[in-house]
């Protein structure tokens, strides 16, 4: 009898943890890059081609948001991240990151704007990375707010400018921290260093494709693309050097070494690295109600691996990884936790989709 009861419990647990169901919320998006959830239940979605789209009541509205600034589109560049102001309900302010300039001379830029439901106004340029670079690779472009109200932005090192990631006189390959009005926080780690650009928060990055702040402890988690191998998940601390291109687990695309070193004094090792590369894109720290067993875990979208990686965190320590949704066979650009507790995923293609991932069966 006891065995039967145990079997029944195991069966119930199995049903409760049944394979998640994947629903398509919208399709026909041109390389969707980022998603933000509005307080009224709608979603803002950036398309790398330069449009900001609205999904309302589960439908992609045909008209793009008006007033989006001119964006340099090509290669890895275009309209990138969209983030709501922490006080969006009061000030209707959003932040956009994108590539700006020309193919021969470009940079990652951040603007703020007021969003009235259909268009943008009061556009303000908050930050433009310096110096400008040539080529359409490695813009970074992910943003996140810290609990103190300052804004973090990731910048790429521009591919051919990899040594710039080690230069405090360049914004390339950095985490940037600015105030929401574009001014520089006085407590930035290099604010008083005459040889450094004051916006720099951390350095030694290649092409960061996600950054988030843990609501639990305020720690900053970031991941970045390595070259061939050496994709990294990092815990970002103000003023620290994350090593690129001096230390890496990756090789150049030609097969050559980037450096003789995988570790070097004064340079932060990653929490984990993916070798071979999975090409991590967006990331979320899941805290929803629909998947209690996933609470506190990291989810990383992967372009090359065409999957979502679940990183099992136990009090901030990585204890395992799981490859999910690789059966869909799609490049995954972003993954977020929705206000409803579902996971939202953007697929990366000319016919990109917004996927909503929910439990297969109602929770008991």
């Amino acid at each position, binding site marked *: 009898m006891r065995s039967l009861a145990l079997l029944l419990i195991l069966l119930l647990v199995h049903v409760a943890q049944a394979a998640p169901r994947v629903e398509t919320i919208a399709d026909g998006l041109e390389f969707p890059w980022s998603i933000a959830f509005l307080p009224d239940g709608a979603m803002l979605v950036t398309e790398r081609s330069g449009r900001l789209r609205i999904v309302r009541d589960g439908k992609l509205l045909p008209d793009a948001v008006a007033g989006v600034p001119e964006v340099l589109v090509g*290669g890895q560049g275009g309209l990138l991240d969209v983030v709501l102001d922490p006080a969006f309900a009061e000030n209707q302010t959003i932040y956009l990151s994108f590539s700006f300039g020309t*193919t021969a001379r470009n940079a990652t830029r951040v603007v703020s704007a007021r969003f009235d439901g259909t268009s943008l106004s009061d556009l303000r340029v908050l930050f433009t990375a310096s110096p400008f670079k040539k*080529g*359409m*690779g490695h813009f970074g472009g992910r943003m996140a707010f810290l609990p103190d109200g300052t804004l973090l932005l990731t910048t790429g090192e521009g*591919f*051919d400018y*990899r*040594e710039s990631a*080690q230069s405090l006189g360049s914004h390339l390959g950095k985490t940037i921290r600015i105030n929401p009005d574009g001014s520089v926080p006085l407590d930035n780690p290099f604010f008083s260093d005459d040889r450094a650009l004051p916006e720099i928060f951390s350095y030694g990055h290649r092409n960061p494709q996600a950054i988030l702040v843990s609501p639990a402890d305020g720690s900053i988690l970031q991941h970045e693309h390595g070259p061939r191998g050496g994709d990294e998940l990092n815990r970002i601390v103000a003023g620290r050097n994350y090593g690129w*291109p*001096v230390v890496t687990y990756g090789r*150049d*695309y*030609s*097969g*050559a*070494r*980037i*450096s*003789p*070193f995988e570790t*070097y004094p004064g340079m932060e090792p990653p929490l984990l690295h993916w070798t071979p590369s999975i090409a991590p894109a967006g990331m979320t720290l899941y805290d929803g109600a629909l998947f209690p067993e996933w609470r506190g875990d990291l989810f990383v979208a992967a372009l090359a691996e065409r999957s979502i990686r679940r990183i099992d965190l136990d009090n901030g320590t990585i204890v395992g990884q799981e490859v999910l949704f690789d059966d869909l066979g799609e490049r995954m650009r972003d993954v977020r936790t929705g206000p409803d507790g579902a996971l939202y995923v953007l697929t990366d293609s000319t016919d990109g989709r917004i996927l909503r991932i929910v439990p297969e069966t109602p929770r008991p």
Partner: protein
Amino acid sequence: MRTSTKKHLVAFPAAVILTAVLASLCSTQFVLAELTALGIEISVSARIAMCFEDLGILRSLLPAVAACWLVGFPVAHALEARIGGNRNAWFAAAGGAALVGELLIMQAVLGVTAIAGARSLPGLLCQGVAGALGGYLFARMTRVPRPEEDLDA
């Protein structure tokens, strides 16, 4: 098989290998120099080890060198026939120019530099020198003997 054909079949791979090895070594040295310029200390043993490891790029470099010379060397041959002058110099120039041209075309198409050590102008020129040495070797190995040399033979 004609003697000249045999010479070409031996000389071309030999020259390709020489250039590819030199190009790899040059690239490694320029990559290491960029790191050294950042204040990174690199031991001699680490430098040597990286040089050997980087020879792994020969898998892609050998066909790349061969491909550009399949265009460059016929041009050198035609120019020598039309204009005259030193055959070795024509092939050295063609060997270097073809490799540099190929890297520049790849940079324009891909938007990035295929060989990291060729990102700077000196690094690119070193790749050209590697190509020129290969072109020179090819010309020397395939030279047509002058009549007096034939008599001596």
